[in-house]
């Protein structure tokens, strides 16, 4: 789960981090009212979860009501890298002289969190990491102990942060680590931390991602997730509802399978045999018939899909349950929307084959044959 900037800023403010005054607004009038309360100049910032909002025109600095109206009118409702902007954050502008990067993430190779500080803030940290890796200081933290204060200081001094603000920046890092730990975050970063001409330290942006697997113990964050409605599009929202691991892609061969590695492999094979995968959909282990039917419904909801390949290798998933689900889903149509190719192997595959209504689907014995057949069908359908 990704928090919106306004949500992360709220979490930051509650933890005592220095964030600029701000208010959320959903209409031009609300923007103007918010700007009056916050005080000009203000930044009007689109609340969508994409990188490079500023460059794409999603952030504007304004100095008067007239400018605020103009900017709000333009940003609200705009399409930012495919996402609709329906809310903006109206935030007191910060008069800064310097920008830093401060963040904490999980280093999966080390199996422990790493805190990072850089004096090259305000730009994409991943490109800094690539071009000038020495410009980022890193300190690994023992997750059982948490971050020692000296580690925060070390990260800040090693990065070359100016001495007069170093202790304040270290204090920001300490609090960020605490939040990372308390909220089961996977990544937390402030880019930029601004240093003002008065030598104040301000968290001007806020990125906070939460481990979905830990949401069960964070009722407050689950509430934020609902309120933020972070689904990328209708299909992904539907996948959330059904509880599928689903990723939409741009091709026309729909893919359903069990197990992440095998589904990824099926996608790769579609590509290998000259087709284009429309999606990744993992029904998980031990799926019952109704779940299988939901999966077909899901993939048929994508209007780009011209054919579907169903690839099941049963371990705890049973072939007969899968076959039942496929029959149920397809028998509910007067006409099958798009051709479906099925390959069943593993547990109860033979029982499944007997049940499967072969008037409605094409059956193939091997994964390779099934994929090739589905790609062929997708090509034929696309030409229609």
């Amino acid at each position, binding site marked *: 789960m990704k928090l919106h900037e306004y949500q992360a800023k709220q979490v930051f403010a509650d933890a005592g981090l220095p964030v600029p005054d701000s208010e959320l607004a959903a209409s031009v009038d609300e923007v103007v009212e918010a700007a009056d309360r916050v005080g000009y100049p203000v930044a009007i910032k689109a609340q969508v979860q994409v990188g490079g909002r500023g460059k794409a025109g999603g952030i504007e600095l304004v100095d008067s009501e007239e400018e605020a109206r103009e900017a709000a009118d333009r940003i609200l409702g705009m399409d930012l890298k495919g996402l609709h902007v329906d809310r903006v954050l109206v935030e007191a502008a910060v008069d800064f002289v310097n920008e830093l990067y401060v963040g904490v993430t999980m280093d*999966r190779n080390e*199996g422990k969190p790493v805190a990072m500080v850089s004096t090259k803030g305000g730009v994409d940290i991943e490109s800094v990491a690539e071009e000038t890796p020495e410009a980022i200081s890193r300190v690994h933290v023992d997750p059982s102990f948490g971050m020692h204060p000296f580690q925060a200081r070390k990260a800040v001094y090693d990065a070359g942060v100016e001495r007069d603000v170093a202790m304040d920046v270290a204090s920001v890092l300490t609090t960020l680590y605490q939040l990372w730990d308390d909220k089961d975050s996977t990544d937390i970063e402030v880019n930029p931390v601004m240093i003002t001409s008065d030598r104040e330290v301000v968290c001007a942006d806020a990125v906070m991602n939460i481990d979905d697997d830990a949401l069960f113990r964070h009722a407050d964050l689950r509430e934020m997730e609902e309120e933020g409605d972070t689904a990328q599009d209708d299909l992904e929202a539907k996948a959330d509802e059904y509880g599928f691991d689903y990723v939409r892609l741009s091709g026309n061969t729909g893919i359903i399978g069990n197990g992440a590695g095998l589904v990824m492999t099926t996608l790769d094979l579609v590509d290998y045999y000259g087709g284009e995968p429309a999606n990744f959909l993992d029904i998980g282990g031990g799926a019952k018939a109704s779940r299988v039917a939901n999966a077909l419904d899901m993939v048929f909801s994508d209007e780009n899909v011209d054919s579907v390949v169903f690839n099941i290798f049963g371990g705890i998933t049973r072939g007969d349950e899968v076959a039942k689900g496929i029959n149920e889903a397809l028998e509910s149509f007067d006409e099958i929307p798009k051709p479906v190719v099925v390959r069943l192997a593993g547990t109860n595959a033979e029982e499944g084959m007997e049940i499967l209504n072969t008037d409605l689907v094409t059956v193939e014995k*091997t994964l390779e044959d099934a994929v090739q057949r589905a790609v062929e069908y997708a090509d034929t359908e696309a030409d229609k």
Partner: protein
Amino acid sequence: MSILVDDDTRVVVQGITGGEGKFHTQQMVDYGTNVVAGAVPGKGGQEVDGIPVYDTVSTAVDEEDADASVVFVPPAFASDAMFEALDTDLDLVVAITEGVPQQDMARVYKRLSETDTHLVGPNCPGLITPGEAKLGILPGNIFSSGNVGLVSRSGTLTYQVVDSLTQRGIGQTTAVGIGGDPIIGTDFVDALGLFEDDPDTDAVVMCGEIGGEDEEEAAAFIGEHMDTPVAGFIAGRTAPPGKRMGHAGAIVSGSGTGTAESKISALQDAGVPVGDTPEEVADNVEDLL
């Protein structure tokens, strides 16, 4: 021979009274696994299909001489179950549970480094030495005994490859599903090292996927330390950056680390043939033997 498990392995099942735990214990016993005990807090003194249940893992170890555990405990309690298992100096802990919070796992990983125990998983199908024992949820009937080792981040992909091998008459020493999470116990390098030291393993199949750098590290290890030939496969060539492909660990980062290309070329540079399809992997194994 085999790695990690054989017919002498004495297994305690943590979470044996739950739905999954009960079902898969039965399956393991049917396969011939020596399941000697269950451990579930508050359920000590009960029996599940004749298997005695204890309140703690340490009692199960003391009373039944267990040397391995399989964890079927829900995600919220899974790290505690792993800590408990690691506290008893078992040789092997296999965590099947999917959805263990990452920070919990980081703490378990730290604890693991202080022990000599092998942890397999979490979020894995377990491991099997065909004809001897299986610890986990793999479908035993597709495996056959032989001389090829297998290590994989994915369950069903393992089944796919094993099926191709078995149908060609190529059996396995041991197959290990190491799991699809970002932080896992036994990784490719650990498993490859064990196979290298196993005199009966004549070739190894390694099925990797996008995300992280484990496959790159494995490639370096193969190049420097392995005489046993390895055949590779990498899933996720078509995965877009920034999207989690089912497994929590299967994600290409925005900056482009963890890609299939990087892993494939690292393996190829180490002399590992990487198949484009699972069938090609089986072809490559045939050539290597």
